[in-house]
């Protein structure tokens, strides 16, 4: 209700005031710009670029995070000896490595993959470590008594016991990944929605820039909502009770 009233007021103010601004555009102009970008397909191509970077980077980061995290969670000795290293590397903000990634990979997808993977790796690593370390000891005993091999042990015991927690971690990592992707595109990388926003702003097209901003908001909302829905659908409320936020 409130947004609708706000939009109408904004439209009236902008339409009557005859002012031009580099930052603000009338809601009608924003809708026009958004519709145009949607119709000529450009916004979909840009979204595809951003999401491709998110998915690949997230895949790499989750793979690394889950594998390192499960090693640390399974072997307390290794975990104890790596504690300081992990705690020293974890607080490095991924964007601090942006110039380094530019130096090593240049512009393009690879640079964006590396930064997204770095930021997505940490939540996966920490939460996988925790999930694997806190598996019910009885389950491990059962697995040993039944004589499961490594593969069976992982597939039949470890995965079912940790999957709900891993999915919560994945949701967290996915949120980081989208944020990092947009950030990298705005700050440096000539790809995707972030870059399109900053070029629209620099070429003084506030309507297109705001349309893209709203689009990014919708994508973020759908992304987040989709993952939440999947979590509820796959695991139900009981599996993830007490894990929210």
């Amino acid at each position, binding site marked *: 209700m409130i947004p609708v009233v706000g939009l109408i007021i904004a439209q009236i103010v902008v339409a009557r005031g005859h002012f031009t601004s580099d*930052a603000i555009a009338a809601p009608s102009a924003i809708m026009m710009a958004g519709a145009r970008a949607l119709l000529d397909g450009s916004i979909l191509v840009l979204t595809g670029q951003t999401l491709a970077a998110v998915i690949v980077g997230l895949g790499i980061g989750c793979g690394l995070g889950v594998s390192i995290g499960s090693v640390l969670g399974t072997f307390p000795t290794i975990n104890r000896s790596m504690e300081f290293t992990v705690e020293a590397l974890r607080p490095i903000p991924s964007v601090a490595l942006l110039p380094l990634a530019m130096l090593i990979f240049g512009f393009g997808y690879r640079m964006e993959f590396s930064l997204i993977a770095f930021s997505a790796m940490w939540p996966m690593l920490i939460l996988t470590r925790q999930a694997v370390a806190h598996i019910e000891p009885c389950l491990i005993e059962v697995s040993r008594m039944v004589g499961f091999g490594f593969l069976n042990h992982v597939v039949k015991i470890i995965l079912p016991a940790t999957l709900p927690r891993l999915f919560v971690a994945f949701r967290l990592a996915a949120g980081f990944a989208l944020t990092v992707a947009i950030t990298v595109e705005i700050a440096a990388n000539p790809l995707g929605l972030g870059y399109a926003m900053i070029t629209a702003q620099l070429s003084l097209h506030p309507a297109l820039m705001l349309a893209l901003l709203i689009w*990014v908001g919708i994508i973020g*909302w759908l992304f987040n909502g989709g993952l939440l829905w999947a979590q509820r659908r796959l695991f139900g409320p009981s599996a993830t009770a007490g894990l929210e936020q």
Partner: protein
Amino acid sequence: MNRARLLGVVQSVAVAGVLVFFWQVVADYRLVSPVYVPGPDRIFDALREGFGGGDLGSTLLATIGHLAAGWLLASIIGIAIGAVIGSSPSVRPYINPILEFFRPLPASSMFPFAMALFGLSNQMVLSVIAFGALWPTLLATIHGFASVEARLLEVSRILGMSRFSVMMKVQIPNALPDILSGMRISMTVALVLSVVGEIMASVNGLGLWVLLAARSFHAADLFAGVVLLGGIGYLGAQVLTVVEDWALRWQHPR
């Protein structure tokens, strides 16, 4: 701290030391190009020179300044608005859809808009930091105030407590754990946005420092900046842990 715990700490620091030593060996034998990855000795030299003769100290302080100002601003606004929204059930249905839209929005996507409003200035950087860091604290505060046990509110009404003392004695103690954990996430967000903002607006700070170091292929300076940024993130989290332990000491009575 018991002995086993102490032993674990010593062990993990020793392992980290061995890893740094390996890194040094790798750098000395040039197994990785020194253009990208300098050895720890060169990074240490860069830190010493930067703090000694150079302006790394003022750069570090500039970033801490951005981070602290934006984060405090966001915390104050977030707690104030969150308290109002959280304690009035009639307002929440109107506000919630807006909050739900802004929460997953990547905060850095506000940079183009802020640049158009404020130009490439400190205000621009601060406004985006404050905007981005606002959401975690705001949502946590709303949750903290909204989840007050209804009977406690009834009791305080029966006791005839004033609005102010209800807030001080019931609502704030209930919301404090949520507020603090929200502020912790906000601080991480604020650090990221400080770095990006400095890069975008060419404002003095560690973000600009690492960017310029990379552009001029001074990898040692770049790593020095990364080390300091990691240090800020680590120390910030430690300070908050201390504050949390002190402010929530009633949760764990001795």
